């Protein structure tokens, strides 16, 4: 492993400055559960890791009147151990409680999961279906990017040299909103999704006003499927969910590898789309 420096940033500006100084040879360090493993495996050659866990902004967990702000360094456990967040964002609990084991969840968070930009990330789909926006700080100020536009390829994102994901923000769900995430893995825990689907619906009676469906592990990036749009205005019925599942499958472009085959992944997307829509609708009805 190439020897790197450890920089503990106390502010966003300090972090941005440290990242900018080293360009491609620096990475932010949040949970470390991916970045340290990859540095050790020689995936990146780094001169510096910039610890962002001591910056107030990246640690924010704020349930406002209209917006939920989640700092980029907030570890998974702070989501599922917070009753209020758990009640309002059960879909985030779905994902936060299955990323790694308890040890990983003590450190890893959705921000790191996002920046890691893995096609199989469990955390990105749920953010997409919650209409989350990424707040990115950089040498030239702050910009915002929709989560679905954040990843640009396997392990690649819109984050440029010197830039730092500070927080994700998303609207507080209105009444009639429900979301759910489910992945398929051969083991019950400690595994990588062969396929994952996050679904959200805004329900009015039995009519789906709007829906979002995001897919994991079936393309080079997490995918915001068009299947959600097709559900808009339709009734929450098994037939419509099946149609949405077919539409979701059509949006995938999976590969066959050690974790699963193209056929298996497409099939699983269908199953999980149906299941997460059912669960999202259930939650939407509870949230009335």
């Amino acid at each position: 492993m190439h020897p790197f420096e450890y920089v503990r940033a106390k502010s966003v500006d300090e972090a941005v400055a440290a990242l900018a100084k080293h360009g491609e040879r620096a990475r932010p360090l949040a949970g470390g559960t991916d970045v340290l493993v990859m540095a050790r495996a020689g995936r990146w050659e780094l001169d510096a890791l910039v610890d962002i866990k001591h910056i107030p902004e990246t640690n924010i967990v704020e349930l406002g009147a209209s917006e939920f702000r989640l700092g980029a360094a907030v570890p998974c456990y702070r989501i599922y151990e917070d009753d209020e967040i758990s009640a309002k964002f059960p879909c985030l609990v779905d994902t936060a409680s299955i990323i790694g084991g308890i040890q990983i969840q003590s450190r890893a968070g959705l921000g790191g999961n996002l920046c890691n930009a893995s096609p199989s990330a469990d955390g990105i789909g749920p953010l997409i279906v919650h209409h989350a926006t990424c707040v990115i700080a950089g040498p030239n100020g702050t910009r915002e990017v929709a989560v679905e536009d954040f990843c640009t390829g396997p392990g690649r994102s819109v984050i440029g040299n010197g830039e730092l994901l500070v927080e994700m923000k998303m609207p507080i769900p209105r009444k009639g909103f429900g979301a759910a995430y489910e992945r398929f893995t051969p083991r019950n825990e400690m595994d990588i999704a062969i396929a994952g689907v996050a679904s959200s619906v805004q329900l009015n009676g039995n009519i789906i006003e709007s829906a979002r469906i995001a897919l994991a592990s079936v393309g080079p990036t997490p995918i915001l499927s068009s299947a959600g749009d097709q559900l808009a205005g339709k009734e929450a019925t098994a037939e419509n969910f099946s149609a949405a599942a077919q539409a979701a499958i059509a949006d995938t472009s999976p590969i066959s590898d050690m974790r699963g085959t193209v056929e298996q992944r497409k099939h699983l997307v269908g199953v999980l789309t149906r299941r997460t829509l059912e669960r999202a609708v259930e939650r939407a009805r509870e949230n009335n």
Partner: protein
Amino acid sequence: MVTDTTKGKYNVIGTRPIRHDGYDKVTGRAIYGADITLPGLLQGAILRSPHAHARIKSIDTSAAAAMPGVHAVITHTDFPAAEDTLVDLGEGAVNFRYASNNVMAGDKVLYRGHPVAAVAAVDKNTALEAASLIKVEYEVLKPVTKVMDAMKPGAPIVLEDLEGQDLGEKIDGQTNQANHFRHEFGDVDKGFAQADLVIEHEYDTAMVHQGYIEPHNATATWDEDDRITVWTSTQGAFAARRQIAGVLRVPDSQVKVIPLEIGGGFGGKIPTYLEPVAAILARKSGRPVKLLMERTSVFESTGPTPGSWMHVKVGVKNDGTITAATADLRFDAGAYPGSPVGAAAMCVFSAYDIPNTRIDGYDIVVNKPKTAAYRAPGATHAAFAMETVVDEICEKIGMDPLEFRIQNAAKEGTRRADGPIHPKIGAIETHQAAMQSDHWKTPLENAPDGKLRGRGVATGYWFNIGLKSVVTIAVNEDGTVALTEGSTDIGGSRASIAMMAAEVLGIPVEDVRPHVADTEGIGYTDVTGGSRTTYATGYAAHDAAQDVVTQLLERAAKLWDVEPDEVEFSNGSYQSKSDPELRLSHKELSSKLGSTGGPVVGTASVDPEGAGGAYSTQIADVEIDPETGKTDVIRFTVVQDVGTAIHPAYVEGQMQGAAAQGIGWALNEEYFFNDDGQMVNSSFLDYRMPTSYDLPEIETIIVEVPNPGHPFGVRGVGEVPIVPPVAAIANAIHDALGIRFRETPINPGRIRAALEAKE
């Protein structure tokens, strides 16, 4: 019927004391191989081949050697030419030339992860950085990783100088077939003609790893007197010594191996990998050198158990009598000859009494790491094939699978299909106990909506081994004893060995202090493997304790001025036959040793022949989500004849641990190779061993049919419980889905594909 021979018969045996080494292990004080440190210690790193099969054109180590902090860089040219000879290692044998080539490649790399160079430096990171500076020029060759591909004409040749054998005849020309042997009894054609039903199938299993949590490690010094000392994690210090000495071409006595605590082995820590490399680095640098293996290398470069292709055919009459059976077993040995196909052949039909049998075994080299033992090596593969055929037979002729197994069971006097006659065994008792288990008697509950449930049963045989063990017992003046043994303790054997000594001496087990010695602290002792430790080292402990008793009888006689035969020993007391007043406990007598001739030390060296065989019958309930192909094991019972359970808690632990490994093997574990022959899932993340959240409680039923070949009736217990699980799970999945799987792992992808084909 669970026999209950132990209860009430013994004072110590059959109880559940706290193990002697337990305190160190729960407090973090126990010293494992990676924990050792020495003054001036250097850290090593190994550069390994990225290719599965390639010719090494050149190695340039100059940049690494020039790096500050680097003390030694070595390649195969630093190794002596190893002897081309097969040497007995107790449990198996080793060819030093292959062993040497395996720890450091010569002109060819034979598998991904094959070591090509090594570095010793001031710290781990410097060593790793230096290793990355070594330039190796390869000519990449086409690899072959599957047995059947390696047997095809025109297949890439793995070992250019291998002389293949086929039924005793040398094979002309280059080949990947190291050997083909056959066992044949009776007339199989006649037997199949007598059958009303003949079932035959082909099987294909993936390579799997033992998955011990502690990676391999070795620390070595090579002093000015040419004395080599190695601290390592090994299943056998003496076997390690022989391998190290063989590769280094020095006499065994020049090498001292100090076995430290061992973090799991299951057969995989019998071969040495890092030890000779650390020794040569130590010699070249003049400093102690430590090598720790990365997890990726543990998968890619140590000894997993083979992938296989098998064909099994069984004929049966409508009344359930087996008339004939044949097996064709083809195992990949890895890069060098020596798969466990011989053991597979010994076991494949050994749970049954079959009049006409033929077994063919093939040992095939491929571009994969050299296989090593893994808990009853070969038997799990064989049982997967045989036991799923038997399940199909039972289904077709409408017979209860346990009744069928009892009707056809091997018993004392039955000839095994590989020749020898079974001694006293407990196959029938094990099946009967399974039949009477709560699990078997409780019908499977209906599955929740959308799920399917099934139950499967399978049985397994393992022959167990004896081999050499030495034990000494020194009596302290306070009545406690120090027990020294050469068997490394992986799963609590210090406790079971101490218990047998305590039983003989009539003292509490806490008064026995067991200690595992290095190769200069005890006589030659074979590896902890083959389910032999509690059997053979326990046998030695029994005999050494008897030796102590004999000597203490003489001391008592001396004290009382009578002849030794006038003193008797019972229940831990020495007493005069003629004068009931003359009576001393072990403890009292121990305090008088100084005045009767000095310390008493009992010793025993054994090489017992009566290991006997063991059977395990297991019941699995599964629940399957047909939409995703996910299988959950919801109930699992292991029934096993253990002879005599010395420490029942650790016997159960062996049964449970083996079952868990077997469940992982059945459902998810595999070496996944890409087209270039590279393993692409060499991490715990993607290798997918079961976690606590993947398994149910594993119920255990201990059956005790004492082994007449052991003073306390012990049979080996560690290996046989991994034999049936894969077949039991496959049979349960069939029960749930109506589909037979003949490949492992039976993972969700395979189940989905089969369901789709069925739809």
